[in-house]
């Protein structure tokens, strides 16, 4: 424990600059591609780019790359619960009226 930096991973400035540039470029791309007619895919592309940006921020800026397995498990668990919230809500709203049940 004499050297606290022993178990701390310090990323280089260059790494952080590259991540920042990637995030800024992705922001420009998502703004430009929103004007293109991709039909139903435009929301898929927008969320895909946003998710990629989230992964970059979490892995590098939030140091998930160097974090313990327990912390990673907690993060994945949080995302899993968010997915349950959104997906199960939509199974209801997206399927209402399909069977023509009275009082739908």
């Amino acid at each position, binding site marked *: *424990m004499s050297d*606290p*930096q022993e*178990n*701390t991973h*310090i*990323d280089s*400035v260059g790494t*952080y*600059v590259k*991540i*920042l540039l990637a*995030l*800024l470029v992705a*922001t*420009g791309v*998502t*703004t430009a591609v*929103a*004007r*293109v*007619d991709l039909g139903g895919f*435009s*929301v898929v592309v*927008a*969320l895909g*780019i*946003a998710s990629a*940006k*989230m992964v970059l*921020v*979490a892995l*590098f*800026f*939030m140091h998930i790359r160097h*974090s*313990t397995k*327990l*912390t990673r498990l*907690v*993060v994945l*668990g*949080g*995302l899993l*619960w*968010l997915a349950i*919230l*959104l997906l199960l*809500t*939509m199974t209801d*709203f*997206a399927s209402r009226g399909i069977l023509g049940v009275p009082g739908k």
Partner: protein
Amino acid sequence: MADHAPTETFALRVQFDTEAQQKDASTLGMWIFLVTEIMFFGGLFAVYTVYRSWYPNVFAIASSSLNEIIGALNTGVLLLSSFTMVMAVRASQLGQQKMIVIFLILTLLFGGIFLGVKAYEWNQKFEEHHIPGQAAFHLDGVLPEGQGHAQLFFSIYFAMTGLHALHMVIGVGILLTLIVQARKGRFSASYYTPVDVAGLYWHFVDIIWIFLFPLLYLIDRHLVK
């Protein structure tokens, strides 16, 4: 074990065996808090998903009334603030006292610019009569029976950007506290947990905006142009 009790430090409180153990516990605790925040915002994202799936056309028209260039530039400002925040954490890891203060002040500056632009955008909404509940509410290009659905979009817009901005204001308070502490030389390479977990919070708020920007500003813009 008993002999390190009298020499308790910020980096090693009595209840922990090692500094690494204490640090891991702090990081884990912060992440568990952030998971509750994911669920907090998650409810609003669910509301958004339901209403956008019900009224896709009105949401596209309402979304296109927002200025996406200002939104994109503001996203850039927020990403820059995340970069300076992580640089502040890096400066703490290296024990560079002065650089911690400089990067925290830069983060505060970019966060302040973001909030200023947000305030300008909200004010625009008032001038354009795009405030839900306003008697004069009117969104061009939407039929009279769709005006209520347009108000729904703006209700969600204000709720989500408002809750996000509230988190930013809390973040500004945290940054101010950290700047005062950092100037007193409170943080070193062996103890910088407050800077570290405040960084996690700041980046989390950044990630929320990363999703809010395309979901609110960029819905099917090609339909309207």
